[in-house]
């Protein structure tokens, strides 16, 4: 398959993730959509790595996975803390940081 197909899939996944971030109100699902975006990026990286014939892109994708894992851990910790405080787990309700 020509690499352009893989890149198309990657772009679509990324934009679906972006749309999900804008639409959903549950922070858990927002984090999931962020994962989608990261995966879209990973796919592009691996595709290009195959395109250039060097495994550097794959290394990059692995590091992205590490970062995603860390981000998920911290984000979920935040959500647990929010839930513990008995606040509504809804990003529209959590809007006190306003100017």
């Amino acid at each position, binding site marked *: *398959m020509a*690499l*352009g*197909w*893989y890149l*198309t*899939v990657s*772009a*679509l*996944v*990324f*934009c*679906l*993730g*972006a749309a*999900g971030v*804008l*639409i*959903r*109100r*549950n922070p*858990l*699902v927002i984090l*999931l*959509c962020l*994962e*989608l975006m990261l*995966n879209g990026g*990973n*796919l592009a990286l*691996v595709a*290009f*790595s*195959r*395109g*250039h014939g060097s*495994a*550097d892109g*794959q*290394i990059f*994708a*692995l*590091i992205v*996975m*590490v*970062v*995603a*894992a860390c981000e*998920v*851990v*911290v984000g*979920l910790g*935040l959500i*647990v803390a929010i*839930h*513990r*405080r008995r606040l509504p*787990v809804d990003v*529209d*309700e959590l809007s006190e940081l306003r100017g």
Partner: protein
Amino acid sequence: MTEVLFFIAGVGAIAGAMGVIGFGNAFYSVLSLVFHLISLAVLFLLLQAQFVAAAQVVVYAGAVMVLYVFVVAYVGGKGQSLAPVGPALTPLAAVFAAALAVELLIALLGSGLSVVNSTGAASGASFGTPEQIGELFLTKFLLAFEVASYLLLVAAVGAVILARRRRGLPDEPTPAPSHVESPRLALVGTMAETVHALPESERSPAHRGGW
């Protein structure tokens, strides 16, 4: 053969993505993401990135998503009404995302990069193998490797601190079982309550600890 596999995996990935953003129940979103991740792993295999595919399945779908499942179970993924309290973004979000998709596609496909049309450069059998990845990690990208481990440590510590119990702050209540007659509920609204004669242990937990 590869084309068939590609289409199945590609459609699966996109379907999983749409499921993530579409399902009202957070649990179903998590499951769709797992499905999406596995489709992505297949795509990685097609791109000769064996190790990355394996890591995707084992680490991402295996560990990170399991963590998600635990948290969703704890927090509760009840369905939300899709009528937002804040800005009404659903139609606009579709527009913005679509614009972004269009631009990305133009950028990627119309860019004239030769690599886009080819199937990739010639690569040997050792491309994407764990040996090659390992060698790269320990030679060329050693710093990234070490920093990534440090980052994991920091994230773990951060998560523990964020989610710990703080003394004095109201903890989450034990869910009041509505069908059980507790001694407290029996006396609520009577003279016993007004003269502070409620059993000590049944007092509201908010008044425990002198807060």
